[in-house]
């Protein structure tokens, strides 16, 4: 993993949902990268993101690709209130939730583990469910 992505996951392990913001022009960027794609400044801060957004699109895998994610598995694109689009999935108990365009979504943390060890992963679920 690149060092900037590693910083994102280090925060995630502390249950902190942060993205890089350019110190010079204040542009927020996702995914993590070495420089600001607007002004090329290498200086940035990891700023907290609200964890609020809405559904832009989703798909349902009917074929299993990953041992951690048996079918049916839903991947969802959430447009965050701060602007970036965050592609992720929902907690298992929400896999079959009927999604809709612009449905409000909120961040939820889930603990998991794979062959590399334990980790905490940011997921999104429909607000109020």
């Amino acid at each position: 993993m690149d060092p900037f992505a590693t910083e994102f996951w280090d925060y995630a392990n502390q249950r902190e949902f942060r993205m890089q913001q350019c110190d010079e022009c204040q542009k927020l960027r996702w995914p993590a990268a070495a420089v600001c794609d607007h002004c090329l400044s290498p200086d940035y801060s990891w700023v907290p993101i609200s964890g609020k957004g809405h559904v832009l699109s989703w798909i349902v895998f009917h074929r299993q690709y990953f041992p951690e994610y048996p079918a049916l598995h839903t991947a969802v694109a959430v447009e965050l209130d701060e602007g970036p689009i965050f592609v992720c999935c929902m907690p298992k108990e929400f896999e079959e939730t009927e999604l809709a365009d612009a449905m409000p979504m909120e961040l939820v943390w889930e603990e998991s583990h794979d062959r590399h060890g334990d980790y905490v992963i940011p997921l999104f679920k429909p607000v109020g469910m």
Partner: protein
Amino acid sequence: MAGVVELDRLKRLKDTVAVIGVGETDYREDYRAGARGNATEKGSGTLNSYQLAAKALKRALDDAGIDKSAIDGLVVGGPMSTERTCEVLGINASWCVSGDAPRGIIAAVQAINAGLCHTVALVYGNAQRSMDTAYGGPRVTDAGILSYVYYAPWGMTSQGGLYSMMFRRHQLQYGTTEEQLGAVAVAFRKHASMNPNAVMYGKPITIEDYMESRYISAPFHLFDYCLINDGGVAFIIQRADMAKDGKNLPINVSGIGWSELDVDSTQLRPRLKDFYKPAHHAVREQLYPMADVTQKDVDVYATYDSFSTHLLFSLEGFGFCGDGEGGAFIQDGRIEIGGEIPCNTSGGMLSESYMQSWNHQPELIRQLRHSYEGTERQVQGAQVGQYVHDVAGKCLSVIYTRGDR
């Protein structure tokens, strides 16, 4: 900045090079080499990319009626290295690059006009079925496109998943239905049924078959996905003044265009917000004026079709119909041979062969040569052909026209 080009300079390149020869391997025969005519097993390792490319090149040279010694430039596509390709083919080129078919064509136009070479072989071989190449799942590699791997922690590395997500967005925004999208798979399969070299020759499907087929990544059904098969493609591009005296009617490269949407590509913004259309718009401002044609003049159209939706989005983006009208536009045989705008007339990558932009080129050349005259496969009187390439927002396009003898 994307879309800003010097049209007067571009126009000078119109019709300066022509395609003089095409060749392909035996897609169907190689695919159905399993027991009882079934598909060969993935990972069987029976074929090799260089062997497939060499076979296609030999056929392209024979078609052009030229000797290998006439080749002084080379474009190498697929998983092959340029050095090993030149070594295997026995060619010391004076100019050589790697790339997909449209990048290769545009590069060849530039190199020939720069005087670096005059006769370029563009070759591709890909034993992806024999090698069991992964385009999704845990084994996938990014191939330079980060969104193909970035969402693995959330269980999504599927390229089909990314395009399916784009189609869902189109559904939400415009009300497009799965049944409407099914017209693409049905039309391409119909075209494959006219093409004895197509992997899916003799296997037509109906819209009912499409709707009943299993989902892979809903809303995408099985038939929205391209094939995985082995094959090779080659074609020869030559300086137009030399091509006039050749064996075949030369098919001119009359228009080229290129525009990319890479900013915010990993977070899928250009996919889900714009369907990559700003890139389509920039390209159409380049190549239609360059070729001195409009959408109405295009007789035969081919699009990169790793997934069915490439056609839907590009027909809207290139102005064959309005935004959001694609679902209705592709109905009633309009995209089939005999229709208003025949698309992917060989069966494309969905139903002929997954040659990653390469198999579309020989098909357009043969349609414009009228090679299928007297059969149902010929697009009657075809004069202008367009190839549209839009892979993850890297949009390139080529206009071909019939040349002079």
